[in-house]
């Protein structure tokens, strides 16, 4: 499980043949688009809340790029930047869900 510390892939070999970083960035982009979809759906009932969620989607897009150059530090440290980012997104999604729940309950109430 990645415990072997062979210093292989030297001599300028392909260090990331699976393009893990690119795939992760694309996953962030898809998540940002999902946030935008939720934002548009909320915009129909509550303009302010919808605008906030769309702003979050822009922030998620940006955060997806950010780790790319913070990786170098994350590797040396303990992946704290990644933990913070993931916590941020998890909180955002939970809050957006709760906001949507409130909107759904208020409808026709």
């Amino acid at each position, binding site marked *: *499980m*990645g*415990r*072997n*510390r*062979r*210093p*292989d*892939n*030297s001599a300028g070999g392909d*260090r*990331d*043949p*699976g393009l*893990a*970083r690119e*795939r*992760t960035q694309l*996953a*962030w982009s*898809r*998540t940002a688009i*999902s*946030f935008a*979809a*939720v934002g548009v*759906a*909320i915009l*129909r*009932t509550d303009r302010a809340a919808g605008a906030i969620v769309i702003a979050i989607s822009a922030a998620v897009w940006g955060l997806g790029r950010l780790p790319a150059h913070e*990786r170098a530090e*994350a*590797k*040396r*440290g*303990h*992946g*704290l930047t*990644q*933990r913070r980012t*993931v*916590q941020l*997104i*998890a909180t955002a*999604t*939970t809050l*957006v*869900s*709760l906001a*949507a*729940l409130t*909107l*759904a*309950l208020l*409808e*026709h109430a």
Partner: protein
Amino acid sequence: MTRTPTDQDHPTGVEPGASAHHEDGSEPDARFTFANERTFLAWHRTALALVVAGLAIIQLLPPFPDIPWGRHLLAVPLISLGAVVSVASYLEWARDQRALRRGEPLPPSRLPRILAAAITGLSIIAAILALLAPPTGR
């Protein structure tokens, strides 16, 4: 992948005490970290899709003629499930990342079971609603 990922990105390995978090073990291969992050993001898209589905039911579906709470019966559990998936996927991300750091096998995920059970239940409710709803005559 025929080649085992290595720790070649982290020649120094652990830096003890570098973090206030209870992070033990050593930094795992960056590809494992990325994969864990993508899994987390995929669950989050699932959560957001559930929220959008719930909102769409409220906003786009015409009300069931004789069952005024019918739309809420579907939408509220869908949106709540979104919140649950969001929190649970964060907890699993943290748990898996810890296992990766320690080089332990990844614990099994509970999310598929939660999601499958919830969607099965919701499908049954939706089917009952569809059967109960009288034809609109249009």
